[in-house]
Structures are given as C-alpha cells and as structure tokens.
C-alpha cells in the first residue's frame, strides 16, 4: 500500500518559559498507509500532539520533511499550502466550531473558503456530510444548542466537506462521556471503511485506541518508543503504555466487544 503520509527526520523544539530549549520531537520517522487508522499515544509532553500538528503544518518542524499525498508540504508557498490543507481534515477536542454560524454554515465553511463548488452543489455536499454524521435534522441549529457529541459530529462533517484524504483527530473524544465516545468512534470507523479516509488520532484513552486503530504508535520523550497492531497480542510490548493498552483490550474483549454491536 502506498504511504499517504511520510514524515522523516522531524525535529521540533520549543523555548521553555525560563528560556531553555525543550525538544518536543527528536528525529521522528513515521510512514502511514492510505486507509490506515493510526493512534498516537504517550504521556503529556511526549510530543504526540505536536507530531499530529506537524502533519498539516499547523506546527512547522525545525528540521525534516513532511510528505502528504506525495506533496512535500514544507517547501510549498503559502497559497499552495492552503490548497494542500484542503485535503487534510482536522477535528479537535473542543470542536472549534464558529458559534455565530449555524450547523449548515459551519459545514459549508471550508467549501466557501476554496469556492470550488457552485451554490447547489455546495448545498448538496453539506447535506451529504450532515447525513454521514447523522445530523441532517439539525442544520439550522447553532452550536450552543447542541450537545458535546453533536458538536463533535458537526466538526467531523465540516472536516469531511472538502473530501479530504486524511483526517487528523486531536483528542476527539476527551471531552465526551463513554456512550458518546463510542458512537463518535463508530462514525470515524465508518468514515474510514466507506470513504477510505486515512485517520491519525491522538488520544489519552487507551481503550478507544485499542478498539479503533490498525496501528498504535507509542511516543516517549519526543521519540517513537514502539509501534504495534493492537490486535496482535502475541508480541511482547516494550513500553508501559503498550502493556496497559493490551490490558484494556483484553478487558474490552471480556466485556463483549462493542465493535460487533455497532456493525450489527
């Protein structure tokens, strides 16, 4: 399978408040295949969020190359980067919707930025995306009138509007309760299988990642400590987080995987 994302030699350091440098990422090399769901985990400060934000260059690396869909993002002009970003959707822990726009206009937002669709096709695309996330009946609502889970659905619809190849998820379920988390994850999986969108997700919730991801990448101190397929239980895990994840997975397995329920 071709790599849709290829990061090489990525380093990024920040200045701490006392002026000393802090290496958030050290020479990271990571390739992600088209159609894969990859989870990034690690303790706070391990660099997982920074790494995610490198993929659409919200954070610029000090060194290294960022290839998405065969395009080297770090060498693009501002204009080229803007159109490259159209192909990379992103959702956030706090949804980041525009509060003064209703659901319809929020989903239409990225389409209006790039103006590639005429009015009827734009409307059709917005309806389509709201359909995917199951919010067709809330098009006229404002974000303040929605629950957390619904807001995250709107933000998923918004991220899908420009038909991205890649969806970046920055702790998408950390502010949600368990039931809502489950249904959001089912939506994400559905998007992955039906639309073939590659998903890269940062999360603290090990159970979430164990259930959803094809591959989990454990980060420690700005490096990739290990990566594995959570379904592969035969190989010994090297990191504490890796072992913890295996435990969650077996717990979930005993309790009867909800994976089955969702597809039933």
């Amino acid at each position, binding site marked *: 399978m071709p790599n849709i994302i290829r990061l090489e030699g990525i380093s990024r350091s920040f200045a701490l408040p006392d002026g000393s440098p802090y290496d958030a990422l050290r020479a990271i090399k990571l390739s992600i295949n088209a159609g894969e769901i990859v989870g990034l985990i690690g303790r706070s400060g391990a660099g997982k969020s920074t790494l995610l934000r490198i993929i659409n260059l919200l954070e610029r690396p000090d060194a290294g190359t960022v290839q998405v869909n065969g395009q080297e993002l770090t060498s693009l002009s*501002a204009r080229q*980067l*803007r159109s490259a970003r159209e192909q990379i959707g992103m959702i956030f822990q706090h949804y*980041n919707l525009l509060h*003064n726009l209703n659901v319809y206009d929020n989903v239409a937002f990225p389409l*209006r930025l790039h103006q590639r669709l005429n009015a009827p096709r734009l409307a059709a695309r917005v309806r389509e995306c709201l359909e995917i996330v199951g919010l067709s009946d809330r098009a006229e609502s404002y974000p303040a009138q929605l629950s957390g889970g619904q807001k995250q659905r709107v933000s998923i619809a918004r991220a899908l509007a420009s038909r991205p190849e890649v969806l970046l998820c920055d702790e998408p379920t950390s502010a949600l309760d368990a039931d809502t988390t489950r249904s959001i994850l089912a939506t994400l999986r559905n998007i992955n299988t039906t639309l073939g969108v590659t998903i890269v997700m940062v999360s603290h919730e090990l159970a979430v990642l164990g259930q959803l991801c094809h591959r989990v990448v454990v980060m420690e101190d700005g490096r990739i400590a290990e990566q594995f397929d959570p379904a592969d239980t035969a190989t010994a895990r090297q990191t504490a987080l890796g072992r913890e994840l295996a435990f969650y997975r077996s717990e979930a397995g005993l309790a009867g995987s909800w994976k089955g329920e969702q597809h039933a």
Partner: protein
Amino acid sequence: MLEQILTILPELWVALGQTLLMLAICLVAAVLLGGPLGVLLFLLGPGQALQQTLLSNVLGWLVNTLRSFPFIILLVALVPLTRWIVGSSIGPLAASVPLACAAVPYFARLVEQQLHEVPRGVIEAALAMGASPRQIVFNVLLVEARAGLVSALTVLSISFLSYSAVAGVVGGGGIGDLAIRFGYYRFDTTMMVVTVAVLVILVQLVQWSGSRLARRLDRR
C-alpha cells in the same frame, strides 16, 4: 418653567443636530480607520497570522501616545491640522477633527481587545482548513467577534457623546456645550436640567439599542 423650555427649544434642536453631526463624523472615522487599525494590531501581535514584533510595538506606541492626551489639550494641539483639513478651527466640523483623532486609537484598542476574545482554537481550525489571513479576518474574526464589536461601538459612542461637550471650547456647539454655557456659566438651572435630561435620554437610547443589537447578533 414650561414656557422657559419652549423658548430654549429652537436652540436645543440646533445643539442636538451639532452633537449628532460631531458624533457621526467621529464614529465613521473610528469605524473606517480605527477598525482596520485594531484588526492590524491584533494580527501583528504575538502568535497571530502576521506576527511582526517591531511594527506591532511602533503602532502600539503610537496608539498609546494619542490616547494619553487629555482631550482638551488634543483639541488645541490639533488646531493646525484642523485648519488644514476643514479650513477653519471653530465650529462643529472643526471640533470633529480632534474628536475623530481621539476616537480612532480608542476604537482600535477596543477592537483588538474584542478579537482576543475569539478562541484561539477556532482560528486554528480555520487555518487547518486552508483559510488565508484575509479569510481569517472576514470569515472568522469579524463573524465571531461581531457582538463584542457592537458593544465596543456602543461604549465608544457614549464616551464621545460626553467628549463632544468639550468641543464647546472651539465653538463646536452641541448639547454638552449648551449645558456648560447656559446652565453652568449663567446659572440657568432650567437649561441645565433640560440639557442633562436630553443627554441622559441619548445615552440610554444608545446603550439600549447597542445592547439589543449585540444580543441579537450573539449566538454563543
């Protein structure tokens, strides 16, 4: 008493017209010049789209300097500029020049402050979708901050309604000036009460409509 009020009524109308003229000119200048200046101050600030420390500091210093002048001193100091623009240094049009010069930096700061209220994450989400700096301003900042901007304009209007009273110093006229000349200097209590009452009503009206509009624009 009623008769007295009736005799000053024509004068009151003229004064009201002058006040509204001065206010209109200075608010238009504030919105057209102070608004963009405020947006620029915000965008040049740390961590924003056009981050430029030097330019940001220079503009910030300029705005602060203009804002540190007591208004009556600004009024006198700007007489040459006023003469050059209006051709005269007396009258309501002349008074509008220093009023505008004070309103522009004030509104710029208010706008900058309101834009800071827009959550960082929303701007970031727009950037991640490929928004240009121009789109960040028009499609994100002005949309999300619109209720706050209306409130800022309300505050500005009320502040400058009372500043315009000082315009009497250069023969600017207006209701505040009427209150000072007749009510204060000539101990004409009726005139004083009537003019202050008009000002109270004006302020209430501006605040009421400003708050109402802001509430209607705010979906948060």
